[in-house]
C-alpha cells in the first residue's frame, strides 16, 4: 500500500466521519431546538386545557341533570294537582321504557380493554366498535332491564361508531377501557356472554382483556342528552 493510497483511505474515512458528525449534530439540534421544546409545551398545555374543559363539562352535566329533575318534578306536581293521574302514569311508563329515568338493580359489570401486549400470532390486539355492539347484542339476548357503557345509557338510538382512537356513543366520545353495566338476570347474562362467539373466537385468541363480575345495586344513569333532536324527524301516526 503506497503512501497516496493510505492518504486516500484516511481522507475518505474522515470525510465520512465529518459527514456523520454533521448529520448527528443537526438531528440532535432539531430535537432540542425551540421547536421540539415548544411542541412538548403545546402538548402539555393542550392536555391541561382539555382536562379543564372536561371538568367544566362534568359540572355542567351534573347541574343540567339536577335542573331537569327539578323541572320534571314541577311539571308532575302541576299534573297531579289537577288530578290527572293517568297522564302522570303514562308519562312515567314511557320515560322508563325510553331510558329517561335512572334504574337501580342487581346485575353484572363487564369491562373490556385492548390486549395488554402484542403477542406473536395475535391477529388483532385492538377492541373495535363492532366488538362492542356485538357484545351489547349478546347481552340483549339475555333480556336485560337496562344497559350503560361508560355511563352512557343505551337507548333505541344509541350508535357505537369508531372515531379514531375513541368510540362515539350517544354523540359523546369514549376510549378504552369500556365498562358495561347491565341490570338483569346475572346468571343468564354471564352464560350468554362467556359462551358467545365474540368472546370465544375473538377475545380469547386475540388476548383482548375482559372481565365479568356480578354486582348488587348497580346504578344505571338515565339518558342525559337532548331528546327533541332524537325525535324531530318523525311524526306520530295518530290512531
Amino acid at each position, binding site marked *: *500500500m503506497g503512501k497516496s493510497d*493510505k492518504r486516500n*483511505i484516511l481522507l475518505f*474515512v474522515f470525510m465520512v*466521519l465529518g459527514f*456523520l458528525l454533521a*448529520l*448527528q449534530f443537526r*438531528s440532535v439540534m432539531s*430535537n432540542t431546538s425551540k421547536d421540539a421544546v415548544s*411542541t412538548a409545551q403545546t*402538548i402539555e398545555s393542550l*392536555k391541561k386545557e*382539555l382536562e379543564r*374543559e*372536561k371538568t*367544566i*363539562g362534568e359540572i*355542567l352535566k351534573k347541574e343540567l341533570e339536577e*335542573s331537569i329533575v327539578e*323541572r320534571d318534578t*314541577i*311539571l308532575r306536581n*302541576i299534573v297531579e294537582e*289537577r288530578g290527572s293521574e293517568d297522564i302522570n302514569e303514562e*308519562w312515567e311508563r*314511557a*320515560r322508563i*321504557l*325510553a331510558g*329517561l329515568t335512572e334504574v337501580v338493580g342487581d346485575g353484572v359489570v363487564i369491562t373490556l380493554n385492548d390486549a395488554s401486549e402484542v403477542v406473536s400470532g395475535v391477529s388483532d390486539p385492538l377492541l373495535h366498535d*363492532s366488538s362492542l*355492539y*356485538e357484545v351489547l*347484542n349478546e347481552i*340483549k*339476548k339475555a*333480556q*336485560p332491564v337496562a344497559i350503560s357503557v361508560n355511563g352512557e345509557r*343505551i*337507548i*333505541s*338510538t344509541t*350508535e*357505537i*361508531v369508531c372515531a*379514531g*382512537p375513541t368510540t*362515539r356513543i350517544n354523540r359523546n*366520545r369514549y376510549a378504552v377501557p369500556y365498562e358495561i353495566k347491565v341490570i338483569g338476570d346475572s346468571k343468564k347474562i354471564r352464560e350468554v356472554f362467556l359462551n358467545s362467539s365474540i368472546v370465544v373466537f375473538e377475545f380469547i385468541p386475540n388476548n383482548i382483556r375482559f372481565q365479568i363480575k356480578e354486582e348488587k345495586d348497580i346504578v344505571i344513569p338515565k339518558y342525559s342528552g*337532548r*331528546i327533541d333532536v*332524537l*325525535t324531530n*324527524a*318523525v*311524526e*306520530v*301516526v295518530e*290512531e
Partner: protein
Amino acid sequence: MKNVVRIITMTLVCFSIGIMISWQYKSIANNNQLLVFQRTSIEALQEELIEQQRVNEELEERLKEVNKEIEYYSYAMDDMGKIDRTIKKEMREAQILAGLVDVKGKGVEIVIDSIYGKVFEVDILNIINQLRAWEAQAISVNGERVTALTEFELTEGDRYKINGMYYTIPYVIKAVLPPENIDYLVYMIKNIAEKEMYFEVKIEVKEEIIIPKIKDEGSLLKYVY
C-alpha cells in the same frame, strides 16, 4: 508485519464506521418517528379539545333553556295551555323513543336477502349500527320495532329471534332519519352491498315510511317493574 497491522487497523476503523452509520440511521429514523408522533398527538388533542368545547357549549345552552323553563313554570302557573303543550310534547318524545307509538317520516327501506338463506348477526348489527350512526330515529325489522334492548339472535333453522319473535329471510329494515343524512346512509349501505359476496342488500329512499310500535309492550314492562 507492518502491513498486517495496518490492514487490521483499517478493518477496525471501517467496521466501527459501519456500526456508527447504522446507529446513526436508527437514531434519525427514531427522531423522525417521534416528531410525527408528536404532531399527530397535537392534532388529536386539538380535535378532542374542540369536540369537548362544543359539548360544553351545548350543555350550557341546554342548562339555560331548562332553567328558563323552571322559572317560567314557577311564576306562571296560570298559563296552563303552555304547560299542557309541554307535557304533551315531552310525553310524545318519550313514547317515540320507547317505541310505544307508530311513527312516520322520510326514510329508507333496506331489503337483505341471501341465496344461502342466512345472514350473520354481525352483518345485521353493522347495518342497524350504520342507521343509528346516521341518526335514525325509528327502526323496524320485519315489522318489529327496534328498541334499546332489541336482540338479533340467529337461531336454529337460520331464523332470527327479534323481540322474542322468529323471522326468516328476506329481512326488511325500515328506518326514518333526518332527511339531510339520507344520502350519506345510502352511500354507506351501497358500500356494504358492493363488498359483501354472500348476501344481497337493496336500499330505497321513500318519502313516507311507517314504523310500527312495539307489538308486546307487556314483555318489556315485565322487566322494568
